């Protein structure tokens, strides 16, 4: 066996450090969610599922979890629908100043969530819209619509134009073309956009924090927990959020990459 060169060792060490920095916090979070004692600090006393039981037994956390799911589902559905329609408009019709308008649709991707959340807060205040889960869902549409648009638009090529024409030629109306031909042809992109939106909405904190009051989402509830001090229960709730996010991201990736390979 050859002795590895110092440069190679350095490269491996560097890679290990990178992955360590990325995943160590998650591992620590997950590990101490299994803590048996009541402080999430070393030494590790578990494993125990008592804090997960505590989370499931906490009606506030459970209702926050359900709220999060509802907001994620609703906002993702809306984002995908609006993103698809916008992509259809830009790809299939002549739009004046199309470049500029496309840029404007994608722009919110570059704006911080804090700014978007504050902007919506001020705007809703002016309109007299109360803080609520629906307001948070609208906020999540604002951040996810650009993403959905970008993903779906990138897959909407000219090669589908003739296929849509064929559908029209065979008697399909515009809605039928969209629903029976265009959307099914683009389903990998649509699915991926939907699951990515779910992921982003699911663990989004700032906008949900600013736009909800009594009923709130899981990340906001976890933040409330944190204010009363460290507890493995917070770790357990955080781990649950993380596991769901990872699952959604994996689904999105599978859908996208299975098509490509």
């Amino acid at each position, binding site marked *: 066996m050859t002795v590895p060169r110092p440069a190679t060792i350095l490269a491996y060490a560097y890679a290990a450090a990178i992955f360590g920095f990325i995943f160590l916090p998650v591992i620590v979070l997950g590990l101490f969610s299994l803590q048996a004692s009541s402080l999430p600090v070393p030494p590790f006393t578990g494993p125990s599922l008592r804090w997960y039981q505590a989370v499931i037994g906490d009606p506030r956390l459970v209702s926050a979890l359900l709220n999060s799911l509802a907001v994620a589902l609703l906002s993702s559905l809306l984002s995908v629908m609006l993103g698809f329609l916008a992509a259809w408009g830009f790809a299939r019709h002549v739009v004046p100043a199309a470049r500029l308008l496309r840029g404007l649709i994608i722009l919110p991707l570059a704006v911080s969530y804090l700014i978007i959340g504050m902007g919506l807060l001020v705007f809703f205040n002016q309109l007299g819209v109360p803080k609520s889960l629906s307001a948070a869902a609208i906020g999540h549409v604002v951040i996810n619509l650009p993403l959905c648009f970008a993903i779906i638009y990138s897959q909407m090529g000219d*090669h589908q134009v*003739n*296929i849509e*024409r*064929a*559908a*029209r*030629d*065979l*008697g*399909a*109306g515009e809605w*039928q073309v969209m629903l*029976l*031909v265009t959307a*099914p*042809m683009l*389903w990998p992109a649509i699915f991926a956009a939907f699951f990515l939106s779910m992921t982003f909405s699911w663990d989004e904190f700032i906008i949900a924090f600013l736009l909800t009051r009594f009923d709130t989402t899981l990340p906001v509830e976890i933040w409330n927990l944190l204010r009363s001090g460290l507890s493995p229960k917070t770790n357990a709730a955080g781990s649950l959020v993380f596991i769901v996010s990872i699952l959604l991201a994996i689904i999105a990736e599978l859908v996208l990459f299975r098509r490509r390979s």
Partner: protein
Amino acid sequence: MTDALVEVHGLVHHYGDAVALDGVSLSIAPGAYTVLLGPSGSGKTTLLSILGGFVVPTSGRVLIGGRDCTKLSPQARPTATVFQDYALFPHMTVESNVGFGLMMRKVERRQRRDRVAAALALVGLAGLAGKRPHQLSGGQRQRVALARALVVEPAVLLLDEPLGALDLKLRRQMQDELKALQHRVGTAFVHVTHDQEEAMALADHCVVMNRGRIEDDGPPERVYARPASRFTAAFMGDSTALEATVIDSMAGTVLASTSLGDFRVAADVPLGAPLLLSLRPEHLHLGEPRKALHLGDAEISSVVFQGSFRRVTARSLRDPAVLFEAKVPPGPAIAAGMRLALSCDPDDLIVTAR
């Protein structure tokens, strides 16, 4: 023709500044196989798109079955199109592809299944109903596209270079099948191509287009043998071209003066008018002048073996600017450098005035 199925009057179409169609009028008989033939940019595809309803012409009218369809959308008119890239629905089975038009017409499910099966049998794809387009070969996709368009029983079937994506052998085979299919179903087919051999093999009615105009239209035999214009004469096949001037004219015949001599040909043009005399390669006789019209001697410049015949080019000794193209059966020894007399039948001379 009063009983025309499709009538097109004075079609003009502009794409921005470019003129795609420049005054096209045409009538298509029911049950006929019409081929729109022309080089790219001749307007043939634009004309087909206007017939299909995908393009609304700048001006002019389209009547189908006596009804004004000029501004009717594709789904509202009695046409169906077979696209060049087939445009099959990739996410549907062959059966759903073919059944799509019937579903849009709200045909009841059982009847739909029967009609789809009949259409698939018609194009010889009976066993493939459950397959998806990506599992099929090019020729099979082509047939699915045909079945999908025919199953809705259009008054006119439009085919946009349907054989363009197939290799030569399959193309010739599909040509025969298309012709047979058209015969069987009796629907009027309008087929766009730039391949004049394809056009001659398929057409009952051949429409030659160039620069947005119709150069000539009629039965392919007539268009080939007696083209109405120089462009058509050149486009329908190889030929030797001779520029001529009319130096004497009387009752349907003229004396045409060329660099190879003066020939008496049938034409009705005034004195001094320019003419083009063309001669198809298969009509040129080499050696001992057995034909009535003598074209003088020529030096063979090349002989290319092509299997069933040889393609011979020869330069005229009377006018070195004239290069003859001839098709010679295998047999007598002919080689480059030989000098031979050339002759032809006066009836085989193609005379075009414009």
